[in-house]
């Protein structure tokens, strides 16, 4: 099966973003991080656990009508370090790049320390520094190493 065939299975998009090589099983977390839940009307295709030479199994997310910026997708590197971003215009991939590790993640994760000021009703966004083996709250310094998706901030 060629790569084109595989992409056809989840339908090609005309204009938008294809996020490929997502760690298998993480597609829904990717959508959560990007704050895409379908309520704003964009077409979203999700393929999960597709065979991948590089990853064994991978997920693919296609978002029609929305070009995601590098900053928006870099945060994905925390849960999908091998992800690649394809910007599509008129069915053609016009830009392709890998995600890179950001130094700071703002407004995406919730601090698991219930005694952290960032969890209170204060006019601040959560802010985590990306450290060697996880992320660290910039306010209370709590380190999250495992299961980052469990800490994605609820709307």
């Amino acid at each position, binding site marked *: 099966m060629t790569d084109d065939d595989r992409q056809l299975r989840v339908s090609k998009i005309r204009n938008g973003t294809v996020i490929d090589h997502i760690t298998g099983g993480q597609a829904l977390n990717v959508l959560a991080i990007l704050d895409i839940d379908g309520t704003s009307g964009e077409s979203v295709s999700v393929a999960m656990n597709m065979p991948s030479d590089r990853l064994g199994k991978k997920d693919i997310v296609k978002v029609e009508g929305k070009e995601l910026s590098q900053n928006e997708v870099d945060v994905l590197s925390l849960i999908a370090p091998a992800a690649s971003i394809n910007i599509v215009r008129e069915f053609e991939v016009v830009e392709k790049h890998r995600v890179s590790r950001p130094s700071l993640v703002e407004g995406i994760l919730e601090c698991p320390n219930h*005694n*952290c*000021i960032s969890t209170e009703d*204060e*006019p*601040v966004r959560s802010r985590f520094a990306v450290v060697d083996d996880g992320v660290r709250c910039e306010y*209370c*310094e709590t380190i999250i190493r495992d299961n980052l998706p469990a800490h994605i901030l609820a709307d």
Partner: protein
Amino acid sequence: MVGGGSGSKMRHDHIISAKQLSRADIEAVLDHAADIAADPSAYADRHADTLLGLLFFEPSTRTKMSFTTAMKRLGGDIVDMGSVESSSVKKGESLADTVRVVEGYADALVLRHPMEGSAKMASEFVDVPLVNAGDGAGQHPTQTLLDLYTIRENAGFDDLTIGIMGDLKYGRTVHSLAHALTNVDARQHFISPESLQLPRSVRYDLHQEGAKVREHTELDEVLPELDVLYVTRIQRERFPDESEYRAVAGQYRIDSETLKAAKDDLTVMHPLPRVDEIAHDVDDTEYATYFEQAYNGVPVRMALLDLLLEDNE
């Protein structure tokens, strides 16, 4: 606060964590504190007309009184928010709003708050210098400065072996001190029950700094080696439930009998208040340094305020 000695400039706008303090910063404050302690009257009019805003959202005796004393001995005065019960916080005002209002009344702020990260967040909303006087189980950098002053006076910073005992998990004075000691030639021994060992974030920093650290569950494993023994209170209010508190309370208690195994010149410190972790019979021994330590809070906070205000005038 670069270059050391009195008259040197503060590089920091706010004092939030011991992590931000370099060896040069620490020496600058301690040297200045020593100058002040030698001749306090020379500083009596140093900051006339300066007002220090005190925002204590948690009870405090030593820290609050020593900041008050320090500001008054520099010729200034304080404005005090008072207790939370009598303030607008009781009406649900956010901390960010409170500090933005109070900064209009004062030239510098001192904040104690029960939540971790509160001082860091508050500092993002004010332009006047803000000093963290304890944020939950986070940091207490001014306590650390007076601890370091006491250590330097009694044991020195070279080839120092220090034992830090008690509540290492929730004790903010411990977290700040452990960070700061990575700046000096110190071996740090941490003595606590397993349930109260250092939090992951502090271990991470000590590891990053390459600190010489060992952990113990019994004091007698290490007591004969120590130059300084820093004892902390097992803090009831930090425990999620009473049974966990009771399980460890009283386990790490020292008395004059315990200290027979120690070096003759051991320095015993405690940030106070103590409950029963240091028996009163230790008070009359040569080891006891905790009241001197508490006294040092005034010159050290005078020095810190002087350097902070000097650079922000």
